[in-house]
C-alpha cells in the first residue's frame, strides 16, 4: 500500500489523480493518509535527506510505502562526483520517499511530471535502480528528456517492481 502524505495544501482532485496514477503504475493501492506540517528548524530550500529523516511517519503496515509530497524547493545533493539536482529523495529499499512539486507551476496541468517523479522515488523504495530507457520513470530524473516523459515503467522495471511487491511480507 502506498500512503500519500501532503506537507502543503493541494487540490483534492490532484491528489486523487496522483493516487490513481500510482495505483496503475505499481498495481498497489494508494490513498491519501492526511496532511502534515513541515518540521521546525529547517528552511527552504530543504535538504531532502534531512527533511525525510525529520518527518514523522503516519500509521502504516510493515511493507507500506509512505510518499511525502511538498511544494517547497529541495537543495541539490552533493555526492562524490558533483551536485545532483534534487526533485525528491528515497533510500534504496527504504519505507519512505519524498517528492517536491516545486518545479511545477500548476500541479493540475503538471500532474504527469509530479507523478513521474513520485514513481521514480517509490521505485527506489522497491529496490529499482536507474534505468537505461529514457521513456521509463526510472531514468535519471536530472536529464533533459525526463520531465516531458510519460508515467511509464519499461518492461524490466515493471517486472522487477511487481516481483518485489509480490515478495512483500504482509
Amino acid at each position, binding site marked *: 500500500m502506498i500512503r500519500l502524505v501532503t506537507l502543503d495544501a493541494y487540490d483534492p482532485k490532484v491528489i486523487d489523480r496522483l493516487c490513481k496514477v500510482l495505483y496503475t503504475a505499481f498495481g498497489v493501492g494508494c490513498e491519501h493518509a492526511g496532511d502534515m506540517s513541515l518540521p521546525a528548524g529547517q528552511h527552504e530550500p530543504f535538504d531532502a535527506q534531512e527533511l525525510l529523516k525529520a518527518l514523522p511517519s503516519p500509521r502504516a503496515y510493515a511493507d507500506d510505502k509512505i510518499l511525502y509530497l511538498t511544494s517547497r524547493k529541495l537543495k541539490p545533493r552533493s555526492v562524490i562526483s*558533483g551536485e545532483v539536482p534534487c526533485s525528491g529523495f528515497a*533510500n534504496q529499499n527504504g519505507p519512505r520517499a519524498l517528492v517536491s512539486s516545486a518545479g511545477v507551476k500548476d500541479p493540475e496541468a503538471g500532474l504527469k511530471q509530479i507523478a513521474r517523479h513520485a514513481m521514480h522515488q517509490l521505485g*527506489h523504495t522497491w529496490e529499482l*535502480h536507474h534505468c*537505461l530507457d529514457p521513456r521509463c520513470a526510472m531514468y535519471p530524473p536530472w536529464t533533459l528528456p525526463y520531465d516531458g516523459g510519460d508515467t511509464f515503467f519499461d518492461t524490466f522495471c515493471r517486472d522487477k517492481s511487481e516481483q518485489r511487491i509480490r515478495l512483500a511480507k504482509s
Partner: protein
Amino acid sequence: MAETAQALTLAVGDRVVYPNQGVCRVTSVESKEVAGQTLTFVTMKREEDGAVVMVPEAKVRSIGLRKVAGRADVERVFSFLRSDSDKANLDWKQRARTNVERMSQGGLMGLAEVVKGLQVLSELRPLPTKERELYDNARHLLVAELAASLHVAEVDAEDSVDLVLFPPGRERPKRTAEEFRSAAGDEDGMELGEDLLELGGEMDLAPEAEPEEAQAEAEEAVPAPKAKGAAKGKAEKKAPAEKKAAAKKAAPRGEKKPAAKPEKKAAAKPAKKPAAKPAAKKVPAKPAKRK
C-alpha cells in the same frame, strides 16, 4: 588480482566482496571436521540481506574473494566512467563471454566496464532481456561496493555514478553501428573489425535480400531463354525447391481428400460398397497419421 588474492588474510569483521554476490562481512573463521578432515571455514554474512556463506579457507583465492576496493580504485573507476570510451563489442557472443569474466574476476573496474559498455550499447539499440538483467546486476554490485568503499548510502553512490554516466543537461546521444565499427577499427585492429563486419553483414542482410527477391521475381516474369544463362545456379537451386513445393501441393490435396471423403461417405453411405472403401481409405490415411 592474483597478487591481491594471494595476500588475502581474513579476520572477523573484515568487509569483503564475493564475486557476483556483493559485499559481505566476515563473521567467523573456524575449523570444522568434515568427512574426517579438519578444514578451516570462513563464514561471511552478505550485508544486503544477511545470507550466510561458508567458504573453505583454501578456496578463498580461487573463488575470487577480495577486500572492498580502496579510494584509489574508486578514483580510477570514476575517471574511467568519465572518459569517452565509447567502445562496445557488437559481437554478442564475445560480449557475453567478456562480461561474465569481468563480473567474476574483474573487480570493481570490471563491474564499471560492464555497466559502461552496456550503457553505451543501449544508446545504439535497446538491450535484450538477459543483458538488461546483467546490466542491473552489475550496477547493483558496483553501487553496493562503492557505497561500502566510500561509507555513503547506496542512493548517493548510485547518483554519483549516474551523474557521470548521464550528465545533467546533456541530450542522450543516438549512436550508429558505423560509430562502433570505426571506433573498434581504430583501436583493436583487424580482430574486432572482422567481427563488426560480420555484424554489419547481418544488419545489411535485409537490403541485400530484397534485390535478390526482386531479381527472382523478374526472372519469373521474363521468358526463360534470358534467365537461363545468367541464373543457372539459381535455376538449379530453384528446381528442388519447386519440386518440394509441387510435392507439398500434391500432398495436402492427397491427404485432404481422403480425410474428408471417408467422413462424408461414412456418414452418408455406410452400407454401400463396404469392401472397396476401406482399401481407398487406408493408403492416404497412413501418411497423415505419420505427420
